[in-house]
Every structure is written in structure tokens, then in C-alpha cells.
């Protein structure tokens, strides 16, 4: 018999409670239980970065975090970036600089960049490459992503 555990967390400002098996990964919980399918599942061992979400403001791999570990946490997923029909400056910058092609890596990347730009409004080039280095993107060759980060910095500054 599988035992479950009652957990509660805030995701994109909304409060959720649910019963989960301890073995449920956070990404499966977000997608399967909460229906927040913007977070993608890639490698399932913490390497590709597609599943990256913000956990209490910090970018983490939700495929190698259990939902029970996030009990009581405040989470942010890609669904929490835009305000209604208005894209977040990071999303707008990705769009304008063509920082995505297939889009599979994009939600995770944008959340890592969101964390970086919340920590510093003027990141160094090394900080930018370190941040996006934690994400596999097989389409863009990264240059357009770096340009999107620079444009997002600009947009956030003049916002």
C-alpha cells in the first residue's frame, strides 16, 4: 500500500494543497496534479535544465526534487512570468531576439534568468554564461539567448 502525504505550497502566488506519494517528483506534481504544464520534463536527472523552476526564489531542477521537499515553499513557474496578455520583459526579450526556436528549453532558461536578474540588475558576462550554462539548448547556439538576456536587462532598467 502506498502512503501519501498532505503538502501545501504557493505556486505563482496561488495556494495549493494536495495528497502526494513521497516518490512524486516536483515536476510531475506541477504538471500532473496542478496542471501547470509549462514546466518541461527533459532528462529527469538534473542535467538539461528544462524543468527549472524557482523554489523560494532560487532556480532548481524540479525533476530531481521531490514534491514533498517543496512542502511549505513558494514556487514560481513559467506560468507566473506574464501578466495576463502582457509578456514579462524576459519573455518579450526572448521573442524580439529570437532567443528560442523549438521552445523546449525556454521556460527553464527564463526562470534561471529571472533569478539572476532578481539578484543583480547588472550581471557580468560570466554570470550570464554560468546561468545559461545550466541549460541545454540544441536550437539557438546560445548567442541569441545571450542577446535576449542583455535586452531583458535593458527592458527591466527602463521599465
Amino acid at each position, binding site marked *: 500500500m502506498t502512503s501519501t502525504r498532505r503538502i501545501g505550497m504557493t505556486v505563482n502566488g496561488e495556494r495549493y494543497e494536495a495528497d502526494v506519494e*513521497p516518490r512524486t517528483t516536483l515536476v510531475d506534481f506541477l504538471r500532473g496534479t496542478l496542471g501547470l504544464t509549462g514546466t518541461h520534463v527533459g532528462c529527469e*536527472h538534473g542535467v538539461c*535544465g528544462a524543468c527549472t523552476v524557482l*523554489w523560494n526564489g532560487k532556480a*532548481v531542477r524540479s525533476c*530531481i526534487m521531490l514534491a514533498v521537499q517543496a512542502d511549505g515553499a513558494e514556487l514560481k513557474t513559467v506560468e507566473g512570468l506574464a501578466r495576463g496578455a502582457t509578456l514579462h520583459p524576459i519573455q518579450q526579450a526572448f521573442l524580439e531576439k529570437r532567443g528560442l526556436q523549438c521552445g523546449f528549453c525556454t521556460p527553464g532558461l527564463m526562470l534561471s534568468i529571472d533569478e539572476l536578474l532578481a539578484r543583480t540588475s547588472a550581471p557580468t558576462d560570466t554570470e550570464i554564461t554560468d546561468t545559461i550554462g*545550466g541549460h541545454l539548448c540544441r536550437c539557438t547556439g546560445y548567442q541569441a539567448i545571450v542577446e535576449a538576456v542583455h535586452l531583458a536587462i535593458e527592458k527591466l532598467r527602463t521599465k
Partner: protein
Amino acid sequence: MKPPIFDYATPASVAEAIALLARYEGEAKLLSGGQSLVPLLNMRLARPAVLVDLARIAALDWVRVADGVVAIGAMTRQRTVELAPEVQERHPLLHAGLQLIAHPQNRNQGTIGGSLAHADPAAELPALAVALDASFEAAGPEGTRTVAAADFFLTYLTTALAATEILTSVRFPMLPARTGWAIQEVARRHGDFALAGVVAVVGLALSGAISRARVVLYGVGATPVRAAAAERLLEGHVADAALLASASAQAAADLEEPLTDVHASADYRRDLARVLVGRALAEAMTRAHAA
């Protein structure tokens, strides 16, 4: 790629966690940041009956920089230590080493104690611990004890911790004056485990001769590997290119058969070790002269 079924416990204290380990008699596994353990669960290479999550034990999350030591609670996230300004300023080698661990997204979740207790021979923290003569505090049913880094890493993924013991903190001594350091590694991709890596520390006497050398390799054996013969070649001598070359050749020659796998052959790893030791020593010497 989904974890097998297990129970899950969230002790609020170290004593409670130790009691759980004792009760489950080897069937329990400690969960800290999960950056190694959860992948192993996803791949079903680990099948514990119960996970004992240490993350709710607030008493294990702290950093103290004082008295020549950076002391860190075992559950402190790697990224917290990396971003602490006093660590960056007063223990630049530890700071540099932390930046080589996987990616920032892993370090946000991964803990200092988790990496040390997991004891992957290609990981940076165990090598840093050996190079710096770090000491570990472990708590068990009979109380606490201190273990030197030199006695802590026994073999692949195996430490001196007993099944009912928990690593609670680690102390990394700071480097003295006139001492230089370097950490160098090569990985196939940025953030991957190193094919080979080295931590080098050199102290200079007033004469300019090397008074103390420490060379610790990682990724090339079952534990961090101290290049003791290479250290002896260096100590007491003024470093020049020939001395650094012979020390790095010695360090590589003394390695027992390094791993051969899909990423690199043993010969490649051995030669990489030679090159990296040479580079690290040169970099450490430059810093020692500037320190």
C-alpha cells in the same frame, strides 16, 4: 525514470534523525539536497525503504567565518556558501572550488554536507577537504566525534560514517600568509563531473623556497588522491619550470590505474592529471608570490 516507492520522514532535530536511522537498520537513506540521490532514485539505482530528509533541521544550516576557519553546517546549500562575501574574500580557494560544482541551479539545492557524505571521487568538495585538512563532525547514537578529512574518504561513495551517523558540520581551515592555491579541472562539458581535477596549495618560506606543498587529485581514483611524492619533490626547493614538470610527472606516475570509461581512457586521464598538476602548481606559485 520515476523513483520507486519509499516512505518519507522529516525529523526536526539531529537526534530524531539518528533515531530514525537506528530504527530502520540500514534501510533508510539520508536526503540532503538530493542532487545525487534523486537521480539515483529516478534511475532506480537506489531503493531505500525510507528517505530521512534533513532539510527541516534548521540547526544544520549555518556558515561561520572566524578563527582561521570557515565552518559550515552540513545542510547549508553550496550556493549560499559560494555567494557569502566573507567566504569569497577570506577563503578564495573554497569559493573557486564551489563554482566548479555542476551548475548554479544544482548548487542552489545541493548541500555542502551532502556532497561530502556522498563522496563521489570526481567531486570537488572531497578534494578540497583533503587538500585543506578539513575536519568533519559526525553525530551518532553514542554522541559526536571529529574525523579528519584524511581518514574520511574510504573508497567510491564510501566514508568513515557509520550507518547510524550523520555528518553535521565541516571545518575548512583558511590558508596562511605567503600561500598560493589553484583548482583546475577538465570536463567534457561545463558543469559535468571532471575527467580529472587537481587542488594545489603551496606555501613559501621567506627565502622563496616552497615550505609546504599540497597536491590532491580528483576524478582519477576511488577517493581524492594525495600526490605525496610530488609534494616531497617540491618542498624545500625554489620552484622553477623543471621542478614543476618533474613534480607533475611524479603525481601522474604515482596514480593507480585511473578509470577507463566512455568519457576517457585511463591513459588519457593520467596524462590529463600531469598537465593539470603542472598548470595548477604554476598558478598557485603566482598567487603565493603575490600573497
